[in-house]
């Protein structure tokens, strides 16, 4: 299964991600965001614990990505994986696997709610579209 794809957008970065489950969808969208930052000088890093509560699944995805983006920016890290310890439509807890980087080639500045789509397809798999401000 394809993890994610970059969609056309005039000024910013729009990613469509896929997943067998909601958890995998969140992971793949995170990978799309992290890989788009084109980081250089990757070294071993730390793991980071995260905890998010949001009004619904769509907001949970955006708020999760915003948290990951924040951690990435202030710690100069990228995250390759996330292990969820709790995952509902409005709450998640987990741990990110981090790697230190020297610099980013692309500055993703924010995760937006604009044109946000998240849905389960007929075959049971999940799909979402998120727009990032770059």
């Amino acid at each position, binding site marked *: 299964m394809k993890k994610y794809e970059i969609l*056309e957008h005039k000024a910013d970065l729009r990613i469509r991600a896929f997943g067998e489950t909601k958890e995998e969808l969140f992971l793949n969208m995170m990978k799309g965001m992290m890989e788009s930052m084109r980081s250089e000088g990757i070294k071993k890093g730390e793991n980071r614990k995260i905890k998010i509560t949001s009004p619904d699944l769509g907001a949970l995805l955006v708020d999760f990505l915003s948290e990951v983006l924040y951690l990435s920016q202030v710690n100069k890290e990228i995250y390759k994986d996330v292990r969820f310890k709790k995952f509902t439509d409005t709450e998640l807890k987990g741990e990110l696997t981090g790697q230190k*980087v020297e610099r*980013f080639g692309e500055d993703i500045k924010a995760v937006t709610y604009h044109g946000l789509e998240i849905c389960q397809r007929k075959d049971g798999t999940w799909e979402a579209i998120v727009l990032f*401000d*770059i």
Partner: protein
Amino acid sequence: MISKKDFKKISDWLWEIPKSFRSDMRVPARIYVSEKMLEESSKDKSLEQLVNVSTLPGIQKYALAMPDMHEGYASPIGGVAAIKISDGIISPGMCGYDINCGMKLLKSEYSEKEIKPHFDKLATEIQKEVPSGLGRGRQVKLSIEQIDKILEGGAQRLIQQGYGEKEDFENCEAGGKLEWADASVVSDYAKNRGRDQVGTLGSGNHFLEIQKVAEIFDEKVAEVFGLFKDQIVIMIHCGSRGLGHQVCTDYLRTMIPAMQKYGIRVPDREFACVPFNSSEGKRYFSAMASAANYAWANRQMITHFIRKAWKSVLGEKASPLVALYDVAHNIIKNETYLINGKETEVAVHRKGATRAFPPGHSEIPEKYREVGQPVLIPGSMGTASYVLVGQKEGEEAFFSTCHGAGRTMSRHEAIKRVSGQEVVKSLESKGITVKCWSLRGIAEEAPMAYKDVDSVVNIVHNAGLSKKVVKLLPLAVIKGE
């Protein structure tokens, strides 16, 4: 899909979508464009987004769009909404993520001929002095306490510390400091993102340019602004970096659930808003002001670094760089207008639009008051930029004008069509020096990805929103990443 047939022509430069177009519109939507540009505007979602702006509770007169309009997140970029403070909303999305993204122009006393032999060295030294903030160049990390002082003191705080001259804040919108800023309503997340970014340029369309005054349209105003033919000036375009983005993210997250409490519904979550006078609204307005102060401090620190480079290349005795003006194009400000015969206080949300106060306005520096506020309009990379001046006729647009050229092509499309090397070569063939860490960044910002700035500026000039004073041409372009 909205198209030309949905518009009523008001003048050659102004078109209106009547309130009857969609049942949730509270006011008509108006767009400052030529007939040709109007047809172009229908190609993306910006017109639909403008109609969405017209549905915001408390909006007065019209939802407005400037000729450089293109698709944004909630509001189109180039959108203006004046919202009544007593019973309207405040919307972080209508201000944008990059709070107080704006322009600063520094003028020298030198002409092109005098500086020409030093160009390459000057551009190299400026690039070296001004870090991008993405990992290259100088890295200074301030404490949270130092950030708090910048959030509340703006550019003035840095000038007090010796990073500038008194004239720098005199010649700046709001004196480089909004008084209602309050560091306690800005999250630690935002502050942490801001700790190592004071004096950094960032990426995307942000840039520094060494330019020359190529053409003078209004001798009298140019003289008041201290501009002369062939003069070397330096233009700065950047904003509040990660800190401003985090403030917007934080408050959208607060407002999305709060809207239910206030019974507000919006066409897109990115428009999340609350009553201006609610506790959440007041907190956001103070947080926005804090981020705006951070942006003015950022442009001030960049100015300091540029001056350092200037002196190191031209010598200690070189005549100094003086700030002409500094003005935001993403901001919310309280202003008073006569609406339906009544003095009305409105929160003017400008998202990719520049304030352009007319002659005599009390909020512009005394030295410019007789002629009007300087308006700084950057072109796309390698093309012309402009200095305009605010006009009385601009009142119909809440004293707002355009903010740049406006994208017409995605970054992705630009990269597919042209390589960074080709762009650099074409700029160099025009005599423009390019300093950039990333060739990809150069390709993304290729001039072909933008509207023609000359036509955009001609619209606001002809519509009377702001008048052309001088045209600037780039000699060196310096980009972050």
